[in-house]
């Protein structure tokens, strides 16, 4: 680590846990290396969630492997740069159509501005960071983390005091499935109340928007995430046009600093529920 801390409790834990980590790694090498090719054990270490200490054996890679690792979302950013207006404003139909076609082509599923004659008030706007949401009665912030790294990355965003626009995501902890967990992890707050026709069709629109799958793209970087509408907001006076969960903001490259930035956001036409929630890469052309 490059930084230095004067906190004795941190120093104590850091030294103790680095030493233990080393012992655990040495043990695994000593016990199993003789049964495995070095490459295999290297793969095991590569599969480790995070590798803060021990250098990993570099594996020989074919040219194909190298190309597979290439992040094509950067190329998407370049393509979007030619279509997205410089000013953050609602898209014109011509711009919208070009961008939709680009996104559908790049991600391999249908990206739409309108489904069942319903369209948002805009599809290009400023996203701001939201807090976590309570998923079931009795939920707490600590229970949201699947790992300590989740807590370190997203815990500081806190948890909103009120519920999302559709209440709890599940009726109880027992009902909390992987899908429900992912819905809260990758949720958006959308200004559904500004959608044309909302006031006249509240029930219909509320059902339509509940957990509606959306693609959100940072046009500057090409980073993209599939998320669901899990809340209504933000208020117009904030100057923001939508909100994203801590995980959404991180996936878009907007998780630090002001936690704000311009994004494109569209419906995903996914009647068979095949598109997975979470960060998404451009379909590989290799």
């Amino acid at each position, binding site marked *: 680590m490059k*930084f230095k801390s004067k906190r004795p409790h941190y120093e104590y834990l850091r030294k103790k846990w680095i030493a233990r980590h080393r012992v*655990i790694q040495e043990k695994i090498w000593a016990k199993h290396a003789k049964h495995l090719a070095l490459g295999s054990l290297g793969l095991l270490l590569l599969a480790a969630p995070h590798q803060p200490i021990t250098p990993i054996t570099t594996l020989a890679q074919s040219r194909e492997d190298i190309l597979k690792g290439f992040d094509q979302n950067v190329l998407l950013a370049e393509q979007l740069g030619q279509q997205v207006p410089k000013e953050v404003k609602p898209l014109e139909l011509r711009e919208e159509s070009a961008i939709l076609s680009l996104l559908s082509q790049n991600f391999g599923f249908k990206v739409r501005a309108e489904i069942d004659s319903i369209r948002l008030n805009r599809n290009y706007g400023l996203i701001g960071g939201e807090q976590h949401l309570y998923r079931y009665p009795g939920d707490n912030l600590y229970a949201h983390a699947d790992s300590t790294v989740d807590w370190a990355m997203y815990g500081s965003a806190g948890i909103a005091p009120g519920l999302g626009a559709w209440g709890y995501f599940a009726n109880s902890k027992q009902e909390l499935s992987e899908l429900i967990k992912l819905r809260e992890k990758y949720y958006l707050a959308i200004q559904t109340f500004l959608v044309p026709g909302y006031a006249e069709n509240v029930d219909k629109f509320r059902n339509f928007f509940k957990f509606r799958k959306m693609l959100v793209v940072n046009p500057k970087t090409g980073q993209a995430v599939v998320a669901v509408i899990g809340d209504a907001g933000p208020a117009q006076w904030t100057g923001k046009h939508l909100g994203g969960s801590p995980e959404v903001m991180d996936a878009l490259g907007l998780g630090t600093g002001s936690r704000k930035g311009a994004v494109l956001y569209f419906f995903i036409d996914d009647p068979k529920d095949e598109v997975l929630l979470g960060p998404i890469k451009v379909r590989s052309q290799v």
Partner: protein
Amino acid sequence: MKQWYSHLVEIELIIIELDKMELSKEEKLHLAHLINSSLHHVVCDAVLSQLQDKDKALFIRHLHEDNHDKIWKFLNEKVDGIEAKIKRAADDLTDELKKDLKEAKKLR
């Protein structure tokens, strides 16, 4: 990030204790990485110790693909009571981590 064994590892109490400590974001992340990686290796060691030599490389290949269903199908076919064995190994480590946190609190 969810790991294939996340449901067997109880980390909530560790997170609660870490959260009570005064730590910068970098410090939190560093400690979190150490816990995650240690857990991963302890779990992998517990599994590899139960597998026959010919199956070890296969397990590592599944691990690298990160297909959770495939990993569990493979392990359940190869080892009786593998979940309990993984849980025991992870619990042993988390108990040690809790003790360390208790000691660290005395230093504040």
